[in-house]
């Protein structure tokens, strides 16, 4: 009885506080319900009777789209862009490869990064089926462990394909180059490029051609992250370090467990911290494929922003990046949701503005309940009221909105809440959120065009994730589609 009454007193206390200070977050279901105002999400029928757990997507000339599946089949669709998807035509190009997790079209061939190798698949006799399979590079180790995944990028400006190699069982380096990013040249040479990888979910470049990958929460990853593969860098997980000795790669850092990323990366200049942390259970649980929006507005006003798939939550998140003191950093926002299975590949047709996604929930559960899915998303033309991006300043942040903000609403400090936290950087699995702080937002100043709110913040913490929630209203009276952003403040920029 005593405990109960104290509990009630505590509940009353917190609810009293929340009315005064806590800004309400948009609820996932509510935001997914609004999605159809702005985006059209359509399931693309896969070949009848076939299990198409889409693991890779390649865009081909003539509006053809190829999908690779976890069972290893490659299918080519004609009509995947059409309004009437009932007439879609599928042709089987290849069968039973070994889990292709990266695919692209180049000069008359499909290229697939499959578990044992990077492969060129060519139809030399024009019958619609691949008949020549060239093993371009098979120089990384595999030992029969199901978790030794290999995710391959599209070619970079040199024609090199970047491959991120998951640890054995996601915990060990039992084969050469597990836990590494390697580049494969068109001639098949393998160039070890970064150490420090744990369990990737996808890889892709930004508009400048800098390569990024997603890494999942686990050992040495307090939470999942969106990471910049700067050549020569260490990405934070030392498990695969011993492979450095197999080439002339300099010995990667041996960081201290139980520390913080900031502390360790200041000790080791090669340690590139995650550009954007993806807070576990808040943003998602398992980030996957990466696409850069270079559609010049065809997909909405997100030019050069990064779109990241999410396996567990069956969503696509949105990231804005900036480059501060030699490092990438930026904010992640919830974006698209309601997909039918756990998403793996994410591919943007930059000319057309169609986003293709696919995935499966085999082996790892997802919010989407179907065993596999292939879908496309198109912008309907109505720009949602959103935080377009968050940009760091020496004394706070500048938030740019997609529509002019109501002046009174923008100036009211009760419409903003900010908290910060980080994770323990440790050899054990995951981390609770730690070192929480509550910075004070001292002022909010709206720009003349009404699009930018300059927040002066007392208490920025270098290395922390700064979580911003805002309830500002648009000039039109509209509310935000999503009202939370998580900014990873690797570096505090100098005053201009």
């Amino acid at each position, binding site marked *: 009885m005593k*405990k109960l009454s*104290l*509990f009630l*007193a*505590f509940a009353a*206390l917190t609810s009293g506080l929340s009315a005064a200070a806590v800004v309400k977050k948009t609820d996932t279901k509510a935001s997914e319900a609004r999605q159809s105002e702005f985006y059209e999400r359509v399931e693309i029928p896969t070949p009848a009777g076939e*299990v198409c757990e889409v693991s890779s997507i390649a865009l081909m000339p003539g509006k053809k789209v190829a999908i690779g599946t*976890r*069972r*290893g089949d490659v299918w080519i669709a004609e009509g995947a862009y059409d309004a009437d998807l009932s007439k879609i035509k599928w042709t089987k190009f290849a*069968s*039973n*490869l*070994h889990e292709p997790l990266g695919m692209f079209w180049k000069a008359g061939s499909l290229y697939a990064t*499959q578990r*044992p*190798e990077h*492969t060129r698949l060519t139809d030399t006799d024009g*019958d619609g089926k*691949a*008949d*020549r*399979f*060239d*093993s371009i590079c*098979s*120089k990384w*180790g*595999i*030992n*029969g*462990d*199901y*978790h030794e995944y290999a995710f391959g990028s599209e070619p970079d400006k040199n024609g090199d394909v970047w491959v991120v190699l998951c640890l054995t*069982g*996601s*915990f*060990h*380096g*039992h*084969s*050469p180059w597990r836990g590494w990013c390697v580049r494969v040249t068109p001639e098949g040479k393998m160039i070890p490029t970064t150490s420090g990888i744990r369990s990737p979910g996808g890889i892709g470049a930004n508009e400048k051609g800098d390569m990024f990958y997603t890494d999942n929460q*686990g*050992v040495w990853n307090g939470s999942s992250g969106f990471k910049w593969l700067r050549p020569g860098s260490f990405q934070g997980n030392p498990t695969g370090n*011993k*492979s450095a000795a*197999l080439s002339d790669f300099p010995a990667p850092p041996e960081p201290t*467990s139980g520390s913080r990323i900031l502390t360790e990366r200041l000790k080791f200049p090669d340690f590139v911290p995650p550009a954007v942390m993806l807070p576990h259970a808040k943003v998602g649980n398992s980030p996957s494929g990466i696409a850069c929006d270079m559609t010049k507005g065809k997909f909405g006003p997100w030019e050069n922003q990064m779109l990241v798939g999410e396996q*567990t939550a069956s969503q696509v998140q949105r990231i804005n990046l900036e480059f501060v003191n030699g490092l990438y950093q930026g904010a992640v926002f919830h974006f698209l949701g309601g997909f039918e299975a756990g998403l793996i590949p994410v591919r943007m047709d930059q000319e057309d503005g169609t986003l293709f996604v696919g995935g499966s*929930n*085999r*082996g*790892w*559960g997802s919010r989407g309940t179907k065993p596999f899915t292939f879908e496309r998303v198109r912008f309907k033309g109505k720009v949602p009221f959103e935080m377009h991006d968050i940009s760091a300043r020496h004394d706070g942040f500048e938030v740019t909105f997609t529509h002019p903000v109501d002046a009174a609403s923008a100036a009211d400090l009760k419409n903003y809440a900010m908290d910060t936290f980080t994770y*323990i950087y440790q050899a*054990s*699995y*995951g*981390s*609770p959120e730690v070192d929480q702080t509550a910075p004070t937002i001292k002022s909010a100043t709206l720009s003349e065009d009404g699009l930018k709110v300059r927040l002066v913040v007392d208490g920025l913490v270098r290395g922390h994730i700064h979580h911003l929630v805002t309830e500002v209203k648009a000039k039109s009276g509209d509310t935000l589609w999503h009202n939370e952003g998580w900014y990873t403040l690797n570096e505090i920029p100098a005053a201009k």
Partner: protein
Amino acid sequence: MRPSSLLALLATAIFASAAEDGAQVYSTLCVACHGPDGKGLNGLPPLVGSDWPKGPAARSIKIVLSGMEGPVDVAGKAYNIVMPPQGAVLSDEKIAAALTYVRATFAGGAGAVTPDEVKAVRAATASRTTPWTAAELLKAHPFPPAKTALKNLVGTMYKGNWKELPDFSTLKPALMEDFNVGVVDPDQSGLKSNFAMVWTAQFEAKEAGKYTFTLDCDDFGALYVGGEKVAEIKGIAPIGGRRKEVPVILKQGLTPIRIEFVQVAGEQVIHLGYKGPKDKGVQWLSKTRGGNAAKNTPSIPIQPKDGVAVIYRNFISGTTPRAIGIGFPNEMNLAYSGDNAAVELLWAGKFMDGGHHWTDRGAGNEPPAGTNVVKLSDGQALIQDTAPSGSIVRFATEKGGKEMKFSPLPVAGEFKGYDLDKAGNPTFRSTGEGFALTDAWAPDTASGKPGLVRTLKASGDKAVTIVLTRGVALTGPSDGVTEVGANLVIRAQSGVYPRTNAADKTLTVTLKPGESAVLGYSLR
């Protein structure tokens, strides 16, 4: 400190201890894999019907704190997955509450777990950085002995290297122990290679009648019932292809049974079971269970269609991880190793079953689905007169403590890809220092017997030697005909003939640039 914040702190502390609701922890963290009803979701292991959450609390606490990985049997089904550790995320109180809930709800009322127990295990295992394996946990916290038909089971271990079953009466045992666990398990030897186990026990027949015994081994072994040898698995090959089923008539009561098992290298598995007069399925007497009876995956046969050969790239037992399986329409099958640039397995009948790799997370190796599996060779198949210069390097991996050690292995040549003709027949391509080789396989349509024709062609400016078989007993060749083990015959049809090398027990063919060899392979 202001009074209000003090009150808040006090309330928080009490709130925390009063409200560590195990059901709530379960429904936020555990439910995604184990399911709301504890029966497992998406093919992940159940808690209901499992022995794991029962018994000593320390075993369950260790699993939650540090996670678990690798092969594990749960409720009669085999899994090979990772459970992520939660020790860094969950307090002792939360773990105790969740385990108490799980044990009460899904484990038939196994006892409550206290935060102090969790605290003690956390302290004792603080240095543990990787997930536990099932073997480690069961060594520290074994299940109660299984009640099987094997009574008074005694195991004797011998060290040595044999190619066929030795006469154990002449050998000196290295270890003899009572294994009061009711099942035979090669891991009871504590070794991974070059040993033999002999188990003796009394087999308890509940009633008189026909008992059909099942035996399969990797590598080989024999079964004696009532003093007579009733089944023998010969040769060195992966499990799955040589399974024997033999009926034995037994009286009610105890009959002596003896199992001999030899492990040379690689995987070590024995499948031993029986089906009695009233049994619906196989009753397993081995720790690892054989096919069908306990397989928790559906069967997804991969077979050639419309007279066109089928390919399967995945992990195939008996060859290396970069395996490429080809199933031909005449019920002949092969597996090529991309690591060794060699066809390493041949077998007859069914090709492969995708049910295992294509459901759940697809862990582990899948044996060939057919019969008469012949292991042709191990290791690199391409050799030159001069040692490799190091321009092509692969890596040898071997266990060095807990982790693997890698050492560079210069090789003469490497796999470069393959072409598939309209009938799906493969031509594997490899290149090396001064040579290129094509290795084409197609069904033998001329002989009328189940067989394959292999055509090897070399080009470039240096000769290359191709190892056709290594480590298999050879007879011949005479007139170009070589008997390979008990099941395979290789016939030279044209071009360069193969030759045997008695010293290293290989059958090889050496091709100079422009030369070829055509070989017929037929399985008995």
